[in-house]
């Protein structure tokens, strides 16, 4: 019987990516030269992650991945055995190896070719480290000459009682050792109990093994790697024979080749190749408690359903109260089930935050800045789809804070601040939204510079007297960048407007507050999910539409005399000190309104990208949560419509897309298209 292992690929990839994240976090937390217990545990964690990836890749036949991992596993093994000091160079090389592995796994997952150049470059780097390296001081004293030069090895192997039950077999392991060289075995049976007291599945034996020959420690480690943690194991080199000593007496300094400087091997500007296809299936891991609670809820739903069907079979008017109770219970069950199912898609935002320690580490080193990254609210939960889409805007904002916000240590000292700047990422829930704040204690936005740049680009008039917060908002304008030098970190001028656009497309908003010399805070507000939203139902003619509640500023009754006609621009409504263009929705959608008189309708003031418009509607109906159905996947993309939903009475209502409506309003040819669609 053969097993189709491809069914396990997805799990392997998920676990490997998690392992790589763990490796990255561990490496970033490690201090150069430190050998305290915390660090040794960290090295162990990193080693185990690499080891699992290597094992899994080997099992599934991803040989390039397993071969690549082998080198870094060896390096990590030497570190955890204390044979090698933890140098910053090694940490950096291992971090690059993590990047390469991540790319390799992504390529394998998507069935595209692995970028062999970057893999080879990092492999060479690791290889150079292995061949030269900085052996630990302790090692220099006890194991000279180099371990691989030993005449052989003395191994004490004492399995823990449960080892045999793990499927590991000393017979096989000792046979493999015998295959490496000349093996002599001494059995230690001192722990073996009387036969009548024997537990046949426990292991009581231990062995002292002498293995002679030209064998590296790695070869031995490889044999025992699967019993790590299930036995007491010590491996020490045998005293070298006289002839060997003569050969190795010369210090081997001449042989040591300096590992190439990282920059010489890797092009630092080389960005990881973007995924070529998006076909890889996405999946989600769900805590068993969430699944259990869903099963409970379904159980309750089934009980309610059977109660109602019983009631239906012999229904009498006298049982009306029971029916009403039953329907209420059904409503409660449905709501709880809906909430439970939405919770399945929720992931802690730490999934998005976890990439930042590495990013900050790399960028601060590159820019010569000292930065302390503080993360809080990592457990705040967010819909998986929102999480995936917010990643890039967050990276951009963090890069921006590092590049433009935080100053160099010298500047900070000169300004009476501590050398190390603080970058704080915070997340929390507020109402039905999640708020993400990116704040720094840097220089703050340079209002003068922003204003002069905006005037230079004709974004504002030189005599506009803008309030500070309006000046700050200018950085979100397309093509705006104040960086003195365009760096590869940020400052290409294609940044903040794209950030805002992406956040808006998620139904969210971003704003900035800043104080000169004290720092800036970017605040992102996002809906918790993209599948359900709060909407305002409106009536236009005989149709009902939904306006996303987040876009609505207010609704007003139009008083006579507050509307002006502007030639070529239609009607504008005077709301306090502003003039808002009026969009008559019935005109846009080619409907017959209840009344064409403005005073008979209501004006819903909506906002998009700081532009406000008034939508003329016949009536405001209920505010409700609506489940968004995609028009694109069920019909086609329609400008001005974000999707559709099914109302309680079974009719379909279209959900308005405010940015699309503004485009329609500005471009009447699109309106004709919309009318053609309606006519069809």
């Amino acid at each position: 019987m053969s097993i189709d292992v491809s069914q396990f690929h997805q799990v392997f990839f998920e676990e490997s990516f998690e392992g790589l994240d763990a490796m990255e976090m561990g490496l970033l937390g490690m201090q150069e030269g430190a050998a305290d217990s915390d660090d040794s545990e960290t090295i162990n964690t990193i080693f185990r992650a690499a080891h699992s990836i290597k094992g899994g890749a080997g099992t599934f036949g991803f040989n390039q991945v397993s071969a690549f991992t082998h080198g870094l596993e060896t390096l990590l093994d030497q570190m955890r055995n204390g044979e090698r000091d933890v140098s910053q160079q090694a940490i950096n090389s291992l971090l690059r190896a993590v990047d390469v592995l991540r790319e390799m796994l992504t390529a394998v997952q998507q069935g595209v070719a692995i970028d062999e150049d970057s893999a080879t470059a990092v492999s060479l780097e690791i290889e150079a480290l292995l061949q030269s390296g900085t052996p630990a001081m302790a090692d220099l004293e006890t194991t000279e000459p180099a371990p691989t030069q030993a005449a052989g090895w003395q191994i004490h192997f004492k399995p823990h009682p449960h080892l045999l039950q793990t499927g590991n077999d000393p017979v096989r392991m000792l046979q493999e050792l015998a295959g490496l060289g000349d093996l002599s075995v001494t059995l230690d049976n001192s722990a073996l109990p009387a036969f009548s007291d024997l537990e046949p599945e426990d292991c009581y034996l231990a062995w002292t093994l002498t293995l002679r020959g030209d064998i590296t420690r790695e070869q031995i480690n490889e044999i025992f790697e699967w019993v790590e943690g299930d036995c007491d194991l010590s491996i020490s080199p045998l005293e070298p024979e006289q002839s060997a000593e003569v050969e190795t007496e010369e210090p081997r300094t001449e042989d040591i080749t300096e590992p190439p400087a990282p920059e010489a091997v890797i092009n630092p500007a080389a960005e990881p190749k973007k995924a070529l296809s998006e076909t890889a299936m996405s999946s989600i891991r769900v805590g068993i408690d969430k699944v259990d609670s869903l099963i409970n809820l379904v159980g309750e739903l089934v009980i309610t359903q059977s109660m109602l069907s019983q009631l239906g079979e012999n229904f009498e008017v006298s049982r009306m109260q029971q029916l009403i109770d039953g329907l209420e219970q059904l409503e409660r069950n449905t709501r709880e089930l809906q909430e439970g199912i939405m919770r399945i898609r929720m992931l802690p935002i730490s999934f998005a935050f976890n990439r930042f320690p590495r990013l900050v580490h790399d960028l601060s080193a590159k820019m010569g800045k000292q930065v302390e990254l503080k993360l809080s609210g990592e457990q705040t939960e967010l819909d998986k789809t929102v999480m995936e889409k917010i990643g890039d805007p967050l990276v951009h904002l963090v890069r921006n804070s590092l590049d433009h916000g935080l100053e160099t240590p010298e500047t900070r000292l000169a300004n009476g601040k501590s050398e190390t700047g603080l970058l704080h990422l915070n997340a929390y829930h507020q109402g039905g939204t999640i708020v993400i704040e990116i704040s720094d204690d840097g220089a703050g936005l340079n209002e003068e510079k922003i204003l002069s740049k905006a005037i230079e680009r004709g974004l504002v008039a030189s005599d506009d007297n803008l309030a500070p917060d309006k000046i700050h908002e200018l950085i979100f304008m397309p093509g705006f960048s104040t960086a003195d030098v365009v760096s590869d970190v940020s400052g290409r001028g294609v940044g903040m407007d794209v950030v805002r656009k992406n956040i808006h497309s998620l139904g969210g908003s971003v704003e900035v507050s800043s104080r000169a010399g004290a720092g800036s805070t970017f605040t992102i507000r996002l809906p918790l999910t993209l599948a359900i939203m709060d909407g305002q139902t409106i009536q236009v003619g005989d149709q009902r539409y939904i306006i996303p509640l987040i876009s609505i500023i207010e609704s007003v009754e139009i008083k006579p005399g507050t509307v002006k006609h502007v030639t070529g621009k239609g009607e504008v409504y005077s709301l306090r000190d502003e003039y808002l263009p009026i969009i008559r929705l019935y005109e846009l959608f080619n409907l017959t309104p209840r009344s064409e008189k403005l005073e008979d309708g209501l004006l819903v003031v909506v906002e998009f990208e700081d532009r406000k418009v008034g939508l003329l509607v016949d009536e405001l109906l209920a505010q409700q949560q609506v489940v968004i159905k995609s028009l694109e996947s069920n019909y086609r993309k329609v400008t001005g419509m974000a999707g559709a939903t099914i109302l309680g009475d079974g009719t379909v209502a279209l959900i308005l897309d405010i940015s699309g409506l503004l485009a329609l309003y500005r471009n009447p040819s699109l309106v004709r298209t919309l009318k053609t669609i309606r006519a069809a």
Partner: protein
Amino acid sequence: MNSISDIQCGEQLTIAQCAEIYAQLLAAMVEGQAVNIDVSQLQRIDSAALQLFYSFQRDARAQGLVTIWSEPSKVFCDAVDILGMGAFYRQNS
């Protein structure tokens, strides 16, 4: 009562069969029976089974019980040697 207890090991003897073999050997030991262990067909044996036999042989020997290893297969002999038990079995069989 048979004076010799026969234990058939078949071609494969691993930790999965150890509990059963242990029960048979223990019964024989309690009864004071001689034991004939047929390891002639063995093509695979693991450490748990070898430890079981080793422990039995040591105590049986101490109690003066006779153990007969009938025509040990090469696999059995190699496995005994690799675990460092060869000398023990060769002492006095």
